[in-house]
């Protein structure tokens, strides 16, 4: 049925199997859309957010997802700007992941605001001092860039190539790709930063406030570095996951190693910077504003353990693992380290968003806690489902892993047999 759409020379599972795989995700998406609709129609009273917890699960999700999606721009940067050609093997997959993460984040943002119909005000009456303006502009621009980067992947599809004009179009786009990568990298760097700035500028929240380097608070740069660090790690994980699920070899063995090395390197830099930043903040920034550093960590359950977990357990440790060639070579170590790195950054985003709001600022404030409502969780799951669906389609019909074909050709025939038997789930 859809055979003629599938890339030449790669094996994909039967349409039936594919549908079977899609169904649960489609259902999840439907449920998610329902809860999102509830929020949009009935208003944000459907969530468990309140005046003290003005931000909740969704902002945490946005920041995390976007950090993980950073693989797209950073790989692009390494490939097209620094010319590390081995990364061609994953760039398409990275772009798809980036697209999924960013578009998902934008959709959630639209649900998260009280008056989505006025979202465009930010473009018409922008407040140039606001980090959120920066974020909005960069995200929307970068999303366009990602869409354009995604086009050639689509256009490479067998059937579409039969249309000559499309072929030309795709060719033109390809010339553009370097420009796009450049622009994309710049935008993405910038708004990963502004996402960090988002909290760093909150002078009213000494827990989040950081002193500025040049125009931006230190969190601006920390977010960039940490995003660059986990981006590759996340690609590492997803690639491995797809290989497992589709039971196929998708990239040459040296590629994961390379990704791991890059990730480790960036992570090490991040841990160093983060440590310095934390020390400055604890000993100068915060006390200067009348808040003693220790007090933040005396509100259960947010003890100093969270600081340790963020910087050492999920920062330094994975960095060292990824940096050591021996451990890195071992898939188990490599993947768990990558996973840890992702958790570390997720934890960092959690601290910046949720803990910041939970901590009291007035002496007669209580310590606040918050649990998301099912509508919030539902919307969150919708993004996950949406991501899986888009990726599944892209993987089935487009060439996300250029090396897949060659790897199949090289593969010894009997494995060919076996593969025909258990013809992958995709």
């Amino acid at each position, binding site marked *: 049925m859809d055979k003629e759409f599938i890339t030449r020379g790669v094996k994909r599972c039967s349409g039936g199997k594919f549908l079977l795989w899609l169904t649960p995700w489609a259902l999840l998406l439907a449920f998610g859309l329902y809860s999102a609709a509830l929020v949009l129609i009935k*208003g*944000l*009273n459907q969530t468990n*957010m*309140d*005046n*003290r*917890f*003005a*931000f909740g699960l969704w902002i945490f999700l946005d920041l995390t997802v976007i950090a993980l999606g950073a693989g797209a721009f950073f790989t692009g940067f390494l490939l097209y700007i620094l010319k590390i050609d081995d990364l061609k093997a994953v760039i398409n997959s990275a772009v798809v992941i980036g697209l999924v993460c960013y578009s998902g984040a934008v959709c959630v943002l639209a649900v*998260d*605001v*009280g*008056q*989505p119909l*006025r*979202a465009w*005000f*930010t473009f*018409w*009456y*922008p*407040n140039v*001092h*606001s*980090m*959120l*303006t920066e974020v*909005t502009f960069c995200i929307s621009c970068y999303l366009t860039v990602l869409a354009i980067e995604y086009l050639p992947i689509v256009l490479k599809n067998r059937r579409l190539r039969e249309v000559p004009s499309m072929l030309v179009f795709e060719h033109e786009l390809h010339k553009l790709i370097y420009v796009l990568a450049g622009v994309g990298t710049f935008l993405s760097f910038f708004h990963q930063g502004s996402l960090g700035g*988002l909290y760093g*500028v*909150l*002078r*009213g*929240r*000494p827990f989040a406030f950081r002193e500025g380097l040049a125009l931006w608070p230190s969190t601006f740069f920390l977010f960039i570095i940490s995003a660059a660090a986990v981006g590759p790690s996340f690609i590492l994980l997803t690639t491995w996951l797809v290989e497992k699920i589709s039971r196929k070899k998708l990239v040459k063995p040296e590629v994961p190693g390379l990704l791991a090395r890059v990730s480790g390197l960036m992570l090490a830099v991040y841990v160093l910077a983060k440590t310095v930043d934390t020390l400055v903040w604890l000993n100068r920034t915060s006390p*200067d*504003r*009348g*808040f*003693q550093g220790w*007090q933040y960590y*005396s*509100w259960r359950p947010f003890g100093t353990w969270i600081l340790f977990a963020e910087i050492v357990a999920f920062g330094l440790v994975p960095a060292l693992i990824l940096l050591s060639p021996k451990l890195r070579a071992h898939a188990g170590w490599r993947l768990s380290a990558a996973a840890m790195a992702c958790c570390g950054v997720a934890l960092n985003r959690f601290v910046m968003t949720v803990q*910041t*709001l939970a901590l*009291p*600022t*007035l*002496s*007669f*404030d*209580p310590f*606040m806690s918050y649990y998301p409502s099912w509508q919030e969780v539902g919307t969150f799951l919708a993004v996950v489902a949406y991501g899986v669906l888009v990726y599944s389609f892209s993987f089935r019909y487009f060439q996300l892993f250029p090396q897949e074909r060659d790897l199949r050709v090289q593969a010894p025939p009997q494995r060919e047999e076996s593969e025909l038997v258990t013809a992958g789930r995709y």
Partner: protein
Amino acid sequence: MNARYGMTIDIDRCNGCGACMVACAVENNIPPAHAGANDRKGLTWIRVYKVDNGKEYPERRSAFVPVLCQQCGNETPCAHVCPQQAVDVDPKTGVVGQMPERCLGCRYCMAACPYHARYFNWWDPAWPKGMEKTLNPSVAPRMRGVVEKCNFCHGRWHEARERAAANGLAASEPVDYVPACVEACPAGAIRFGNLNDSTSEVAHKSKEPDSFRLLEKLGTDPKIYYHSKRDWVKTIAEAPRPGAGKENVRG
């Protein structure tokens, strides 16, 4: 000559009756609590907190602290972060204005405000049947999904300016008016006026040694001055001290 509207609140005079909170809601067309609203999802532009000296009964002593928008004058945190200029500081009055019809409800300003003086409209405003007849025409109707806060009763400010114009007075601050909470406070604990006018009562009181501002060290230069002769009350101006037992269960 620009004005700098501000308030002095004498904590030693406040017995926490709540007249200011009710008067504020009446003046600004704020609806009664929607079913499901609680002390974390409510709309109380001015809110009276009960604070205590952290000791146990019978040494425990309490005081009532009305907290409203502190009208920060220096790098106003909320105005600084709003992505679409829904918050601005009026140079002529120093009042931090919030524009519900420009606000998209991102709540970034609420995260930015250290005083929790900003409130989000979680529900569509609704009044018991007939009660909408008592709405104040000088203040816009409320709407769902936007952030709001105290603006020193701008409806009254508009009226005062119109009166002045009608009486042929020149356009100049300060105009002659007081916010609803000031008018309502039976104990006269809240005073309102122009801090730039050295002859005004607020200017005097704000300079007294017993006057203090909340979280002054943040450097946001708030325009609400609190006043108390009790030393333990003065400590509420500082950052929280975990374990000092300063848990606030009332207010």
